[in-house]
């Protein structure tokens, strides 16, 4: 696996969402789902494109599973429609949709062996027996369960069951595969390997994946685009890089990676630069085209790794005292306490051995960030 081509290499130019003439493959058109009075999915619109690897990210109970279940046909939207390949699928029953789902609860057939579980969908398609056997063997190899083919689900560990569920949903090679937390129960190494396998399969077979995950790192690794959900709405839909560099709100900024948020008010906006007055760190400048009335409350969001430790006087200078140091091996994260009491995090690559570290507890240091390294958020 060492000589694997990075999956992103062939995907560099894959961006149908920014091409106005591209036909979306899956369309959620103002979809709302209510359970009684409770709104699980609130007026969501989304286009997913063929061959896209799309991730849904969000806290528990925000409506991710509900969204997938509507696409699979187990819930009917209260309002709005869902189109698949241009066709409204609201009247198509689940067993006729070219969509397969991997259930969050695995939902394995307890009375069937692992191999029979995987073969079940293929048998429904009346696939010839030798082909079924071959496909099942492929799938078992993929999820590394070859020697468990004859076991019943209750004879497997949690992670093994999850892999059976994954293999079963992949076996039919559906045009659209919905994966509800497919890798949650796997250890880090197996999870990373399976992530790459998934990306390979998706790429090679030209499938469209929608995947739910709680792991933002996983979402960043595998996805073409990510949607961050909260309370049944999409807060932001963007590519991983966009989402990391230009989150559209504090909610997203906080959800994806680590970030410093400094509260302030806008002093002026001119020539593609925003100047903010902050209580914690004085006047700060961010390069960003923005129209806002001076005095508007706003937030500066800056990633710890984009903070630099400086000695001279500089623009966007933030003075403070080293409050805590988290040593992570490759990096150290400095928690710097500002005179106002606020804490700002700056991460530094550990280019020297720990012993020679120049900065230590209670040192007075100055931090800075480049004006184009931060974003200003109004929300």
């Amino acid at each position, binding site marked *: 696996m060492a000589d694997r081509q990075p999956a992103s290499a062939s995907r560099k130019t894959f961006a149908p969402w920014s091409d106005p003439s591209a036909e979306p493959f899956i369309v959620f058109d103002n979809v709302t789902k209510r359970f009684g009075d409770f709104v699980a999915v609130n007026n969501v619109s989304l286009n997913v494109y063929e061959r896209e690897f799309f991730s849904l990210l969000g806290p528990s109970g925000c409506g991710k599973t509900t969204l997938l279940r509507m696409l699979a046909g187990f819930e009917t939207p209260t309002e709005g429609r869902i189109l698949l390949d241009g066709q409204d699928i609201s009247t198509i029953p689940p067993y006729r949709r070219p969509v397969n789902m991997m259930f969050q609860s695995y*939902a394995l*057939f307890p*009375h069937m062996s692992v191999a029979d579980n995987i073969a*079940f969908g293929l048998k429904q398609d009346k696939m010839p027996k030798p082909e079924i056997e071959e496909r099942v063997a492929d799938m078992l190899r993929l999820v590394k369960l070859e020697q468990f083919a004859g*076991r*019943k689900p209750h*004879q*497997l560990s949690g992670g093994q069951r999850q892999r059976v569920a994954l293999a079963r949903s992949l076996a039919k090679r559906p045009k659209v595969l919905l994966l509800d937390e497919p890798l949650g129960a796997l250890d880090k190494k197996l999870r990373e390997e399976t992530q790459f396998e998934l990306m390979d399969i998706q790429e090679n077979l030209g499938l469209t994946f929608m995947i739910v995950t709680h792991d933002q790192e996983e979402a960043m690794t595998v996805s073409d685009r990510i949607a961050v959900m909260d309370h049944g709405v999409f807060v932001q839909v963007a590519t991983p890089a966009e989402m990391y560099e230009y989150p559209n709100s504090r909610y997203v900024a906080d959800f994806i990676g680590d970030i410093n948020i400094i509260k302030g008010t806008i002093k002026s906006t001119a020539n593609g630069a925003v100047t903010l007055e902050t209580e914690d760190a004085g006047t700060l400048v961010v390069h960003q085209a923005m129209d806002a009335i001076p005095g508007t409350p706003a937030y500066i969001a800056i990633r710890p790794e984009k903070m630099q430790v400086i000695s001279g006087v500089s623009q966007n200078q933030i003075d403070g005292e080293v409050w805590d140091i988290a040593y992570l091996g490759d990096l150290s994260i400095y928690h710097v306490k500002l005179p106002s009491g606020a804490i700002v995090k700056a991460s530094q690559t550990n280019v020297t051995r720990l012993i020679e570290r120049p900065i230590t507890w209670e040192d007075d240091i100055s931090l800075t960030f480049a004006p184009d390294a931060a974003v200003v958020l109004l929300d």
Partner: protein
Amino acid sequence: MNRGPTWFNVASVTAGFAFLYLPIVILVVYSFNESRLVTVWAGFSTKWYVALFQNQGLLDAAWVTVRVAFVSATVATVLGTMAAIVLIRAGRFPGRTLFSGMIYAPLVMPEVITGLSLLLLFVAMNFARGFWTVLIAHITFSMCFVAVVVQSRLVTFDRSVEEAALDLGCPPLKTFFQITLPMILPAVISGWMLAFTLSLDDLVIASFTTGPGATTLPMKIYSQVRLGVTPEINAVCTILIGIVTTGVVAASLITKRQEMERQRAERLAVAEA
């Protein structure tokens, strides 16, 4: 502390088991009695079993009973399972509470009333009483028991398993037979066995609804006992006890073996994971 059995424990266990099983033991022992007198032991003999197999009346009654029990248990299982599925799955429909109440009512209804009302129905419909009326009556009261047993299994049934089958392209009816039914099969079999047993030993309802030529074994035994208990009756009962005991022991052995196999396999899986 002394954890061994005290004389009090031993005594109460003995008394309890004696209370439960002494009558049965006496019945079995006297079925092998040489004497015609039920209360006097005159040596071992199997002659009453031989006599039993020459008693055409008893054999006929036994055959009727087995047929009624088998067919009524089977039909009741189908109907009861269907009722249970509707009650659990159909969500809220108008009249659901009434319907589920009506399913439970025969469980607590005195048998005399069930029997009498069925009799009145058959008379009103001018239905010739006999094998078929007993059969219908048994289906009527035993399907409720099946429905209750199957319902309790369905309450804990994980529906996402059925959804997974649908999702993989299996139509609903096929999903029922390939996924749902195998999963609830133990409950369905228990329901069938319960219905079979209930039908086998029903006296009251059968007496109300039977007609010429359809005397069941309990009825036959009851009417003969009124003329005096014969060792022949003891022999019939011993055979019945034998059949029931074999069934129960076999069922529990099978369950136990499955359980042990499952635990062993789980240990294996954990060890290999």
